[in-house]
């Protein structure tokens, strides 16, 4: 699993997760998700178009992000879900609650970006 977090000038955040998000790899996300939430973004876009596999621990982390961001008054939109992750989100009935438009606007120019591998 690798991920990238980019903060746009308008304060919105973009989190892109690639590969396999599971009980092992999910812990690599934790610190950066805390920092992201501490910035109290009005909008978080989670780009899952390159997420290949997710398990219930990974789903748990995304649900947690969603709930905490919303509790702060922010919005969260998940984009690009496909294949196994899409099947899991559908099975858990999370697709209608959490998943936004499938088409992702490119990150605005001038955004700062931190990348973790």
């Amino acid at each position: 699993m690798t991920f990238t977090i980019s903060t746009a000038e308008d304060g919105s955040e973009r989190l892109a997760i690639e590969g396999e998000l599971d009980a092992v790899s999910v812990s690599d996300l934790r610190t950066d998700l805390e920092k992201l939430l501490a910035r109290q973004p009005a909008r978080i876009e989670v780009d899952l178009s390159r997420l290949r596999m997710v398990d219930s621990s990974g789903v748990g982390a995304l649900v947690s992000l969603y709930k905490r961001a919303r509790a702060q008054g922010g919005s969260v939109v998940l984009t690009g879900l496909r294949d196994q992750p899409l099947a899991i989100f559908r099975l858990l009935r999370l697709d209608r609650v959490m998943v936004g438009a499938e088409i992702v606007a490119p990150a605005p120019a001038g955004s700062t970006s931190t990348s973790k591998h």
Partner: protein
Amino acid sequence: MTGTLDHRDVTLRAVSAACKLVTRRPQGPTWNEFRMQVVSAVGEAFNNIVLHGYEGRGDGEIEIEIRATLDRITIAMRDYGSSFDPTTVPPPDFDSLPESGWGLFIIKAFMDISYTPGRPNVLTLSKTLPSEPADEAPKAEGTPR
């Protein structure tokens, strides 16, 4: 196979390879979904044994048995950790958007499950490959089935 999450990948790769043994055409949407569901369910079951059965101790053994017959795969997982009763675990409360408690629901949704507590606990997951819809089936190739 030791029950640490690091070993889950190796198990899932073996299960994924074994999914190719249940059909003479390991391809197409029906088989892809079959494999996706089997690998997802076994991954959840492995997590549960490590995190609940062995409570993350990381030194427990998990024995894996994979049986492939035409159209069916069966995976037996044996562990020496604590036992539980999967029939009494309640389903997730979807409306409250829980952050955990999805694992067993995924397992049961994707595979047939049987569980015998003991030493070892034996969790058996099996699944039949659905027959392909007619429009997915290959054109006649002259090989009798």
